[in-house]
């Protein structure tokens, strides 16, 4: 029966081939399903069922910052008790509570979420000692007389951190590394790889950070880098809540005291203090935040 309007399209339903087709489909479906089930039974790797549950609750980014091969490795270590939960900065609080229940360990401390920032903004503004024409990234370049930058702690911008970051949050332009605060999950991989140890963790709620970590005096910095901190101490003097102190020529911000007023940012003649979140809209209206309970030593 040609059901369709085109006379020549379609032919009478051949029930035989239809039956054969069904048989084949069912046969293959059955075969495949059975094989999968059998093999999954036969190849059942004896695993503690809790590992799977823990793994599901972890962030699942396989970033490796906890030192274990991906989240499954970390979950196994957690269940065996060889690892502690706080070495994974990714998992949010509720997940950490659930995991603690599964493992039957107490959940302690609610770590303040942090993000990473690069404590250098010199890059192309900082003089080069030599032109590096070699293979590879900052790590290999650092072996050659401490990298091509005149400033011994200057960022070379060759992207070791870019490779390390599993979230593609870091980009190198204008000669130095920039971390995108929205993407950064503070896994700490870039902190481990940066040969100059320039990348530091600041609380997520911080608004300003010091983008320089040279310990030379002002005169030397002037000769080497146009964007370096000359340790003039203006920021220390203008900060109303005394949150900034110059420790051997490097301003250190104590975020528990910082009231996000932004005065240090304006005062700094060399613009070394920069915004954490590059937002140009609500510059002025940073509201008051009552200092939180000091919980984790930075």
């Amino acid at each position, binding site marked *: 029966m040609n059901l369709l309007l*085109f006379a020549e399209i379609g032919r009478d339903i051949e029930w035989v081939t239809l039956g054969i087709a069904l048989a084949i489909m069912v046969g293959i*479906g059955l075969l495949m399903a059975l094989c*999968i089930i059998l093999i999954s039974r036969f190849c059942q790797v004896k695993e503690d069922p809790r590992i799977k549950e823990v793994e599901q609750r972890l962030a699942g980014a396989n970033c490796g910052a906890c030192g274990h091969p991906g989240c499954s490795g970390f979950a196994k270590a957690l269940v065996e008790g060889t690892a502690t939960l706080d070495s994974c900065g990714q998992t949010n609080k509720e997940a950490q509570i659930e995991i603690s229940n599964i493992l039957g360990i107490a959940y302690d401390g609610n770590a303040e979420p942090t993000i990473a920032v690069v404590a250098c903004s010199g890059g192309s503004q900082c003089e080069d000692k030599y032109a590096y024409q070699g293979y590879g990234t900052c790590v290999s370049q650092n072996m050659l007389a401490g990298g091509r930058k005149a400033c011994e702690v200057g960022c070379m911008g060759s992207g070791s951190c870019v490779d390390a970051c599993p979230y593609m949050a870091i980009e190198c332009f204008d000669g130095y590394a920039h971390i995108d605060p929205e993407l950064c999950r503070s896994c700490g991989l870039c902190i481990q790889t940066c040969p100059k140890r320039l990348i530091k963790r600041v609380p997520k709620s911080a608004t300003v950070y010091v983008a320089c970590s040279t310990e030379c005096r002002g005169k030397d910095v002037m000769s080497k880098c146009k964007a370096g901190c000359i340790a003039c101490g203006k920021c220390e003097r203008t900060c109303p809540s005394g949150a900034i102190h110059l420790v051997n020529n490097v301003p250190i911000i104590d975020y528990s005291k910082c009231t996000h007023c932004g005065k240090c940012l304006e005062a700094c003649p060399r613009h070394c203090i920069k915004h954490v979140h590059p937002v140009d809209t*609500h510059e002025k209206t940073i509201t008051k935040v009552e200092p939180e309970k000091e919980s984790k030593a930075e």
Partner: protein
Amino acid sequence: MKKERFNQIALDGLVRQNPTLRLVLGTCPTLAVTISAINSFGMGMAVLFVLVCSNVIISLLRNVIPDRVRIPCFIVIIATFVTIVSMFMEAFLPSLFESLGVWLALIVVNCIVLGRAESFASHNPVGESALDGLFMGLGFTLSVTLIAIVRELLGSASFFGMELWDPSKFSIKFFTSNAGAFLTYGLFIAIFNVCYNAVDRKLKHKHAQQTLAPVTVAETKEAE
């Protein structure tokens, strides 16, 4: 189903998560078929049909299918719809079927279809899945046809098959070659990124301007 959810899905499918230009999925047909605009439009429509139907069926069965055989079941459903589309095309649109040829069958393993099935259809109700399939398909069709129009215009000097000027006078053969496909696709992604970021920044700026005060207070509350 709320209007705002509709907008969100629509915008996701067409712009925010455009499968070809933002998520860079389904690249195989995009590169291969965009030599002629008619083929690309045909391909887009086929993908649209498969996407909508498979999303609907998968979201209907999402609680029934056990997790262990999830992938084979999804693939069987998608393959059924692809075979139906190819049979339909062979019967009624023979010229399009001939020119699409191999790529029609490859919709089964198209990353968009299985991707949407797994990430969206298997967690959302039928209505939203169907809509998502529809707009994802439209997004794919739009971007593929756009790329094809450019390549056809430059490569073989014709627009949807109609000859505009004599190709021997001016036509860049490079765009009909494989290398041209990569280049055009790459530039399209770049241009789309530029427009997207510009519009995004303007939107965010306007958004932040209007609701300045309450947002910052609410924001800090959230940050606690």
